[in-house]
């Protein structure tokens, strides 16, 4: 419970002689103790290791794409190979990295800690989720790497059902299985938030990260079954020609677009919401200040999770959808911007008159706010009917969603990883390297993706291997940026791994942050708290602390 715990956990000291429980990392050492663990913290690390491997595969595919696009006439790979590479990039990054990233790692690790619980509501179900995830993900990964699939991550019919000559069915089966992992995790988290809060932890004493995790879990529960069914129909159509999507069999290809986006637009918020939660934690901790407008931010999370189910039609302004439907979807998409704006303005107000430390997590948070605002507002451009008629399916869209998913989710993930690294591992990361890495990623990201806004406005369609020569200069710039981004990613991968053995030992609360996760030792004991916490204070009560001290 106190910083002196760290001394007692020196691995040099034989555990048995200490006469007290060791931390969750050192409690047991066998492989079995990892692969059959029901400890939410160990499961979180299993997820962290797996999604990092998947990310590396997705990133290699991204690098190959940028390499190809250095020259306009697509000489480096064949068209088919290029199509398989961008499909691999999209499928891996969306389904096996971004969607599970923050919920499955930080969510698993922090949800019980932040609400003062010993574990999630269903620990064994939690382990099952990881096995289900790995089964589906490895299956699809193997398909993508060995056989290849060329449908794009969107699997549009009737290309995917009838015309593609690649391994569509195995790829789909893996994605379907991974969906069940999302559903199980969502269910587990919802029940945990409802049932497992410690005494005194009322709804409005929960950290914002828990609110966003709760909202995300609702989307998992309500949205994932729809994509699961849609993909099952796709498999049935391809295997048995049941005639749902292919017009030659009496189906309707636009129906697939509806079903696909009914899930896949909310899926964007599965990626974005937990990131917003992480950033809220970081901003409050590094400004040492209460979150401005806590209730607005909490409601905004639930608001986003609700409205996001009503905007899927904005992916279909140019597919013959009725003008009335398009206009309504356009309006609702503008409405989504309201809760997002709430968050951004409230973060800014939180920083105002804070006591700010610009450590690595805060640098990521500030980068996140800038990139997320740009990504969000370019989303409004695309929600504008006449603008979308021009920019739809161009590089403008590619730039827009990378600003949301990389600039948003990825930076939040990295910021959170640095912030909670001491809690996860009991070690500090090297601060100087951290800052350089954050800076490189921010610069590399912008050099990579900003030119793509211009390319899209100029009319370069996405998924083009062979593009007109007048677009080459901007493409070279974008590819050059991606090399900076790649170097940036190497930084945390190397120094975080290094810190596992050589990092400075972390105290229980290295950031002087509020929140129950910082009241237990780093790393926490197997059951999180020596004594079940009792909460009689508001979240982020930095002001009270200052008054007590002052």
């Amino acid at each position, binding site marked *: 419970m106190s910083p002196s715990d760290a001394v007692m956990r020196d691995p040099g000291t034989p555990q048995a002689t200490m006469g007290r429980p060791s931390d969750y990392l050192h409690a047991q050492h066998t492989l079995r103790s990892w692969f059959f663990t029901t400890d939410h913290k160990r499961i979180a690390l299993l997820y962290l290791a797996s999604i990092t491997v998947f990310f590396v595969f997705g990133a290699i595919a991204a690098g190959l794409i940028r390499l190809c696009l250095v020259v306009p006439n697509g000489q480096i790979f064949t*068209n*088919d190979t290029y*199509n398989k590479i961008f499909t691999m990039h999209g499928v891996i990054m969306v389904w096996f990295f971004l969607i599970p990233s923050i919920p499955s790692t930080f969510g698993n690790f922090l949800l019980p800690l932040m609400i003062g619980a010993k574990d999630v509501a269903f620990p064994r179900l939690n382990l099952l989720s990881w096995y289900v995830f790995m089964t589906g993900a490895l299956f699809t990964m193997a398909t993508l790497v060995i056989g290849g699939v060329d449908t794009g991550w969107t699997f*549009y019919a*009737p*290309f995917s059902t009838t015309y593609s000559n690649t391994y569509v069915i195995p790829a789909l089966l893996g994605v379907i299985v991974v969906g069940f992992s999302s559903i199980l995790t969502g269910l587990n988290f919802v029940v945990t938030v409802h049932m497992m809060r410690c005494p005194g932890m009322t709804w409005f004493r929960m950290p914002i990260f828990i609110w966003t995790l709760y909202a995300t879990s609702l989307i998992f529960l309500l949205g994932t079954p729809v994509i699961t069914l849609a993909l099952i129909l796709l498999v049935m159509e391809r295997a048995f020609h049941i005639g749902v999507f292919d*017009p*030659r069999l*009496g189906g309707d290809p636009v129906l697939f677009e509806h079903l696909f986006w009914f899930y896949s637009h909310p899926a964007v918020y599965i990626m974005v919401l937990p990131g917003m939660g992480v950033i809220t934690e970081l901003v409050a901790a590094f*400004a*040492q200040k*209460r*979150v*401005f407008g*806590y209730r*607005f931010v909490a409601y905004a999370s639930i608001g986003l999770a609700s409205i996001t189910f009503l905007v899927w039609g904005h992916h279909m302004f*140019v*597919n*013959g959808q009725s*003008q009335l439907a398009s*206009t309504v979807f356009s*309006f609702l998409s*503008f*409405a989504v*911007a*309201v809760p997002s*704006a*709430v968050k951004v*303005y409230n973060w*800014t107000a939180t*920083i*105002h*008159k804070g006591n*700010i430390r*610009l450590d690595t997590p805060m640098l990521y948070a*500030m980068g996140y*706010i800038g990139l997320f*605002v*740009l990504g969000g*507002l370019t989303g*409004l451009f695309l929600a*504008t*009917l006449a*603008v*979308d*008629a*021009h920019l*739809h*399916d*161009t590089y403008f869209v590619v730039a827009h969603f990378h600003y949301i998913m990389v600039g948003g989710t990825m930076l939040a993930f990295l910021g959170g990883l640095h912030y909670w690294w001491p809690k996860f591992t009991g070690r500090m990361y090297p601060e100087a390297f951290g800052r350089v890495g954050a800076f490189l990623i921010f610069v590399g990201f912008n050099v990579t993706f900003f030119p793509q806004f211009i390319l899209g*406005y*100029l009319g370069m*369609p996405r*998924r*083009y291997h*062979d593009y*007109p*020569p*007048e677009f080459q*200069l901007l493409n070279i710039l974008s590819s050059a940026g991606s090399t900076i981004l790649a170097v940036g990613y190497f930084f945390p991968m190397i120094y975080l791994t290094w810190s596992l053995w050589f990092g400075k030992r972390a105290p229980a609360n290295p950031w002087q942050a509020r929140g129950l996760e910082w009241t237990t030792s780093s790393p926490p004991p197997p059951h999180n708290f020596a004594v079940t916490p009792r909460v009689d204070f508001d979240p982020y009560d930095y002001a009270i602390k200052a008054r007590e001290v002052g």
Partner: protein
Amino acid sequence: MSGAPSPAAYPLLLWPQAASQSAVHVDWLIFAFTAVTLLLTVPIFLAITYFALMYRSGRQVDRGHTSDRNVKIELSWMLIPFFLTLAFFAWGAQIFDVEKHAPANALEIQAIGRQWMWKFQHPGGQAEINDLHVPTGQPVLINMISQDVIHSLYLPAFRVQMETLPGRYTQLWFKAERPGQYRLYCSEYCGTDHSVMDGLLYVMSPSDYARWLSQAGSSQSLAALGKRLFSNYGCSGCHGAGATIRAPDLAGLYNRPVPIDGGGSVIADDTYIRDKILNPDNNLIAGYKQVMPSFKGVIPEDELMQLIAYIKTMETPS
């Protein structure tokens, strides 16, 4: 064509070419929206940077008098940007409304997308592959369909695109004003050679266009081709002029409501007529026994378009 530079002649393009007034209109919308975006974001970026430096830990500055909530401020920064951006929703919807309603006098060009080429047919029967020639000064309506997967016809010089669907006609229209060479693309991913399913759009003065048409080697108009097909496929046997016994006379059919067996009616538009030829068992017509054979897999898409062009010309006998 007439010395206009090819789009590839621009080494670094920072500004897309605009070939129509409505493209310029869309550009204005985008520029204005960009300006408002900057107005909403630059203050945030400056504020965050300023606060981060000003209130850095260790600096002796006034940190008092802050509150952690203020409903008036929160409501105002929620609602003011919302209403500000709603103006762009309305502006975009208004342009879109124009884009959705082609003028009645538009020149209609038929387009077929298939893996991996475009085929365009002009009303006079001239056909071209991947490239498209259009005149200035006259609205042009492109009626399109796909033979296989979903494609999308994208004409960046007019700032418009429309998905080309299998089994259903979709339309886009524009009024070209600036002669020149522009690009056209397939923008919806469609498989192996998606990225080479592109071509050039030649915008020409009406006289140049007329000259091009006369040199493009057409024997007969689309409707005339359709009329020949109408008898070759045996349609005229039942649907001939004045027919009522086995099948309805098709004169004056186009864009009229057709009574459906069991009540209700459907408008006989392009998609309906095409569907009726391929799937006669759908939407049975009131008062007739269904005896028509299906022409699915028999009549290709370009001939279907010719047949429909002919049916459109069949006048109601007065």
